[in-house]
């Protein structure tokens, strides 16, 4: 795969291709700046070293022309870089409609992966090539950072909230998965691999995992076991908002605010319902913080999402 001394990392996702162009442009620009500075410095140092008879008359002193020109030139150049980088950044961090969603939980010192079909992995992630994969990530303890160098994507996973990230692999193979936020003793080993497979291979892999229930089905079990169905179920007598079709819609809350029902919202509601009482409903839902770990939470969210929803959630 590599020359014995690696110089350039793999690029295996559409995200990476886009970032590469910018990166190469910046490398070239940096090189140019360095060469200019070094060339000027060396020329002056040689030409005007002590002892040469080169004329020193007519020293340039009043300098505003030079300085203003130089300032405007660098500023213009920097603004180009800024716009270029910002455009890609916004694109990188706003997931497009996904073909597939995968749930990731970071904990000291492993990445736990749950596929929508219920397949689980640790420190490994199998994905199909040429499909948009959306990751929903949570942390059980400290801040981790999900990083796939070959895809040029990275995002911190902060406890207390859900983060999303997306990629679209364009090359099959095995790539490194890392944690880049120092997370304690074994941070260095909180690494894994991303296996990008062809569609048929991936389908085979999914079925070979011996899973009985999909993630949403496991969520449905939890939904009953924790008594959620007693109020939010189809034929419940309690006046509670219906969850079918909820995901991705705009929800009007009691305090007058409107929130998009994305994963983070669902999570907030389950853990801290009183702060998110839906307009027109009594604030009677108990608070489930402390009863669910991050894995359960993701299953419940997967179940609620499986009940259908409005337009795709966008972050």
């Amino acid at each position, binding site marked *: 795969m*590599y020359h*014995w*001394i690696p110089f*350039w990392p793999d690029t295996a996702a559409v995200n990476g291709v886009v*970032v590469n162009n*910018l*990166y190469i442009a*910046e490398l070239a*620009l*940096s090189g140019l700046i360095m060469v200019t*500075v070094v060339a*000027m*410095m060396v020329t*002056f*140092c040689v030409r*005007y*070293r002590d002892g040469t008879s080169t*004329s*020193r*008359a007519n*020293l*340039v002193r009043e*300098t505003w022309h030079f*300085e203003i020109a*130089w*300032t405007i030139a*660098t500023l213009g150049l*920097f*603004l180009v*870089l*800024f716009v*270029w*980088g*910002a455009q*890609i*950044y*916004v694109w990188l961090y706003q997931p497009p409609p996904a073909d597939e969603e995968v749930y990731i939980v970071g904990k*000291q010192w492993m990445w736990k992966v749950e596929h929508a079909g219920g397949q689980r992995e640790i420190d490994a992630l199998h994905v199909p090539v040429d499909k948009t994969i959306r990751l929903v990530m949570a942390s059980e*303890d*400290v*801040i981790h*950072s999900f*990083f796939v160098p*070959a895809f*040029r*994507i*990275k*995002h911190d996973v*902060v*406890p*207390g909230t859900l983060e999303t990230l997306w990629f679209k692999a364009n090359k099959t193979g095995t790539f490194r998965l*890392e944690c*880049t*936020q*120092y997370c*304690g*003793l074994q*941070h*260095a080993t909180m690494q894994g691999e991303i296996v990008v497979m062809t569609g048929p291979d991936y389908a085979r892999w999914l079925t070979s995992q011996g899973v009985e229930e999909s993630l949403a089905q496991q969520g449905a079990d939890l939904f009953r076991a924790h008594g959620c169905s007693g109020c939010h179920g189809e034929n419940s007598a309690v006046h509670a908002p219906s969850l079918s079709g909820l995901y991705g819609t705009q929800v009007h809350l009691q305090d007058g605010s409107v929130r998009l029902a994305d994963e983070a919202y669902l999570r907030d509601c389950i853990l*801290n319902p009183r702060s998110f009482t839906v307009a027109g409903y009594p604030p009677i839902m108990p608070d489930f913080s402390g009863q669910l770990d991050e894995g359960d939470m993701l299953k419940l969210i997967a179940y609620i999402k499986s009940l259908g929803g409005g337009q795709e959630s966008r972050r």
Partner: protein
Amino acid sequence: MSTTTFGGVPADEPTAATEPSYLTSENTIASWLFTRDHKRIALLFFASVTFFFFVGGAAATLMRLNLAAPEGLLQPAVYNRMFTMHGIIMVWFFLIPSIPTTFGNFFIPMMIGARDLAFPRVNLLSWYVFNLSGLVVLFSLIMGGADTGWTFYVPLSTVYANGYVLAAALAVFINGFSSIMTALNFVVTIHKMRAPGMTWMRLPLFVWGIYAVSVVMLTATPVLAMDTFLLAVERFIGIGLFDVRHGADAILWQHMFWFYSHPAVYIMILPSMGVASEIIPVYARRPIFGYAGMTIALMSIAILSFFVWAHHMFVAGISIYSGVFFSLMTFFVAVPSAIKVFNWTVSLHKGRISFDAPMLYALGFVLLFTLGGVTGLMLATLAVDVDLHGTYFVIAHFHYIMVGATVSAFFGALHYWWPKMTGRLYPEMWARSAAILMYVGFNLTFFPQFVLGYLGMPRRSYTYPPEWQSWNLLSSAGASILAIAYLLPLLYLGWSIFWGRKAGPNPWRASGLEWATPSPPPKHNFEETPVVALGPYSYDPENDTFIDQEGVLHAR
């Protein structure tokens, strides 16, 4: 004052007889420990920061040894504590205090024509507080150290880390008092104690650099103080204002931390910029190019440095719009830095350049700062930062700025002012060799880390996949060269104190007020307050003459 005494004059000058030098005026230990003389306090600080430089350096040496092979040498826990203590000690106990507390302390009063800083007792207290915080951090280190990284990110530092995090955080908190006292002293001194005729636009750029850095210290440090205080409270009682279990925000710590720590990067670099601006005109025998532009650049860096902190947090889960804003501001702050590089380079044009050791360090400073700067541009670019954040690329980038540039400037300043501080010349050939060795060793150590970073090697890892060993080995090899280059000056400068040639008042034929005194200077600097007639850097390369700040023309 004689106008024709240059390098290598005999020891007994007329002025030396009238008042003994600050080194010999009193000889008891108490006269050092309770001194209010800014020059002595500068030397006390010099001893302290040098000690911490080598403690932090020892930790770095262990780290590079460990990383020479993927199997490593240290236990993971030991490695983690080493990089944490390396970061804490180098940032707060060397880089931030280094140039201000030593050369700033020594030369600010002399450069502005004052007999001392405004508050000599506060100055001394600052040294004691610094050492107190140093003791606390050494306690933390000796007891096993903290293992959170110097950034203390919560909730790792508040809940999960074992180690002596509380002691380390308290050390940083206490250290802040020392920073603030020193900075306050400089701001007040520069405003109130300037000699007659020393207008703002006649101040040497080193004074401007120290002024800018003092403003930043005064306005940034309190936020860090509050941040570490809250961290200590949370660590101590188990609940606090960064506690995600109670709906608090883990990223708030990062906001407040970087509100200080990004300006802190400029705290480290602004004095070095001042040093480079001092050294280059002296050895190029030419006025600095664009003095006014340089002062504007210094001050605008100081102010803009407060608008960019969240560029450390582009991937941390902040609002993407916020990310875009901070990226834009980061490009803005790069502009004055670019101006400075340009001006330093052009300051060589039509000079009469000699390559004494301070000049070598200064030129090295400019080159390393430029490379650190352009890689900083890459990190400021949002999409590229998403990839490079948290990798060795970042490590390499900030070491180019903080070690490459700042430490070069520190050594440059040390050599440049050594004759003034000790009255002795250092051995030139040794010094030049050390400077070149440092430049080579530094690049060998840190350039490979750019490549490693882009390959995806995460920072703060005690191990890595075998295919990256060649680069890591190169880096470790460079580090050993660097270590020698840092130790060498200790030897030959130490030697020169006793056996070096006498320097005379102005061996470099420099124009600043500090060179108008004998070397070493008498206790009260100036027998009578100098009257300033001119700006600094009035060198004429054509005739090889210069006019000092009191307006006296010195012929070749």
